[in-house]
């Protein structure tokens, strides 16, 4: 399905949409989706995700659109015969059965009669709706409609599939099956463009993501790249930080730890002891390190750099309870990215917690 000579599945140079000359839904989107990858589009409500997908599918007319879809200009109707689409909150004619829905939309995508009958049967089985194939869609549950919707998006064997909230309304089993289906599509060489609020789902299946905020792409790249800056190791030691553990760790670490900043004033009448602020330092290798209670954080994702620290702590007979590689989740990254744009500064959780980078 994917050929080396193929250009990008979606190549957007500049896409803008303004409603009534006042409301800027999209402010010049630039995005590239390679063939054969699963691409996730993330963003808070009202960011313009669905608007972008609808522009690609000619449901909404752009104010300006420069770019291509499967090598053809955006809005080129015949190209849509090779594109599958599942809109958010789709609504099928309630008088049609599941099989009739698939055959009708396949016919609308110019699939011949024999092929659409065969494809409908295969797809109904693949989304586990074979038993309900001849039952009217109007009687289906939300999850069943979603499954038929997914099958509908694939009924004409498209090269590119755009899915707007495909797991919406599905139970955990359905979500898992959808994930597996998306991975199968990727294995078949199809390009999947996924628009979802469920960051966990996106993180599990997407190769690359873009984050859309206020009509602009604010981050774009592989999930590994995007979440790289928050990676670190944490070493948790056994003992009471207030009972000399902290001093012992400080003495053991192969670096100079800067004294903590002045503790924040305790509110009058506030109960409980104030938590000691984190102490920061730099290892001889230049890697940042942080001492926070009984936890030592080392700002690297290289296990080799952690070994001297473990050795140093063990040489002082300190008991190591756990050593954990910590990676910034996509959710953390997403919230940070959204907050950056919305507030003009970072208030992301990793930074609030004294992130190392």
């Amino acid at each position, binding site marked *: 399905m994917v050929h080396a000579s193929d250009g990008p599945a979606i190549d957007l140079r500049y896409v803008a949409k303004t409603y009534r000359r006042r409301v800027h839904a999209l402010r010049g989107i630039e995005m590239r989706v390679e063939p054969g990858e699963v691409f996730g589009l993330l963003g808070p409500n009202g960011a313009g995700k669905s608007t972008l997908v*609808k522009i690609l599918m000619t*449901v909404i*007319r752009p104010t300006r659109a420069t770019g291509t879809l499967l090598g053809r200009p955006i809005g080129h109707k015949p190209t*849509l015969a090779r594109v599958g689409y599942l*809109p958010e909150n789709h*609504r099928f004619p309630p008088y*049609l059965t599941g099989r*009739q829905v698939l055959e009708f939309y396949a016919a609308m995508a110019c*699939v*011949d009669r024999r092929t659409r009958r065969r494809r409908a049967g295969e797809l109904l089985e693949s989304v586990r709706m074979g038993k309900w194939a001849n039952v009217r869609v109007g009687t289906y549950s939300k999850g069943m409609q979603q499954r038929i919707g997914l099958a509908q998006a694939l009924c004409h064997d498209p090269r590119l599939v755009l899915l707007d909230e495909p797991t919406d309304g599905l139970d955990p089993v359905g979500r898992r099956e959808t994930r597996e289906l998306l991975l199968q599509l990727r294995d078949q060489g199809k390009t999947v463009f996924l628009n979802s609020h469920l960051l966990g789902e996106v993180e599990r299946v997407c190769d690359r993501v873009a984050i859309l905020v206020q009509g602009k792409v604010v981050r774009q790249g592989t999930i590994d790249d995007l979440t790289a800056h928050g990676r670190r190791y944490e070493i948790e030691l056994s003992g009471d930080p207030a009972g000399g553990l902290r001093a012992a760790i400080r003495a053991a670490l192969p670096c100079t730890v800067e004294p903590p900043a002045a503790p924040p004033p305790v509110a009058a009448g506030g109960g409980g002891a104030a938590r000691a602020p984190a102490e920061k330092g730099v290892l001889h290798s230049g890697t940042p390190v942080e001492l926070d209670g009984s936890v030592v954080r080392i700002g690297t994702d290289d296990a080799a750099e952690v070994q001297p620290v473990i050795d140093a702590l063990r040489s002082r007979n300190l008991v190591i309870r756990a050593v954990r590689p910590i990676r910034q989740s996509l959710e953390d990254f997403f919230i940070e990215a959204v907050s950056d744009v919305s507030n003009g500064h970072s208030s992301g959780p990793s930074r609030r917690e004294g992130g190392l980078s």
Partner: protein
Amino acid sequence: MTQTLAIFYDAYRSLNAKKMFWIVLAISGLVVAGFALVGINEKGLKVLVWQLDTEPFTTELVSAAFFYKWAFLTFGIGIWLGWIATILALVSTAGVFPDLVTSGSIDLLVSKPIGRLRLFLTHYLAGLLFVTLQIAIFCVASFLVIGLRGGVWEPGLFMAVPLIVCFFSYLFCVCVLLGLVTRSAMAALLLTLLFWFGVYGIGAAENALLMFKLAAEQRQTAAVQIEKQPSPRQKPLPPADAPDRGAEAEPAEPKVERPPAEARQTRGPDGESRSLATAHKILYRIKTVLPKTTETVGLLERTLIDLAELPDGAFGQPNRDSAQGKAARQVAETLRERSVAWVVGTSLGFEVLVLALAAFLFCRRDF
């Protein structure tokens, strides 16, 4: 072609699911069965075994063929297809476009490799399919009944199919436009019915004004003729050398027929006629740009029967010799003189304009 057929088939399934298609068809069957049950003989009408005295509607005055054609036009077309079935068809099809443009539904269709204009027109034609099928079935059944019972096989009946479809399409295009604007089947239906009654009212008012205008013209003509007749008092004096025949020789003064009171009243004020003509002209112009629903259905009458064949005074027909009858006949003749191009052409012009506006909205809208 695959897409077009798929949309037509889907439209059929949609109508089928609403049951309305079958309900209307069943009522059509009853109407045709009604024709079949009624017979006409030398005594009058006969319903099954019951003989009714319906003079002058007997075979002595009208042929069975004429009777069946007249019944088909009056009840089958005029009342059933022209009113009741049309309202039912509008009820059935008013939701076609509001349903189509519903969010989540339109996305699935617009995102397919089919142009919006084609999608719009195909759905429009699919809506007309409902009426076409209904009328075609009704006409075939009526053709058989008139043939078997009346003994005349009248292919002209099938003119009802294009004419009634045409008539329905005038209303359906308005319903489509309103459905796209309001996105509500109920609002579209009610406003379309309102429009229809408005158009009907304008048509009826134009006909009434035409009748008043013609009557005023007749009165004025009569008054002018009376004016031209020499008054006995103004009779020229005989020449002086004329022999005096005396009073006995004087011929009797010719009896001058006095104009009727109504004609005397209009003497002089041809302003009434002028104002009626002006009002009629305005209404006629308004009517010209609007769809002519009644006239379009009435074209079938021109094809099938000659009103002169109707027995005098039968079924509410005015007496031909009465003043009312003369005026009505003159109006009917004037209406019949209006060309098919004017009746259908201008109505289709209206339809094209409304459809163009609806198509523009459909093609330009962000869903």
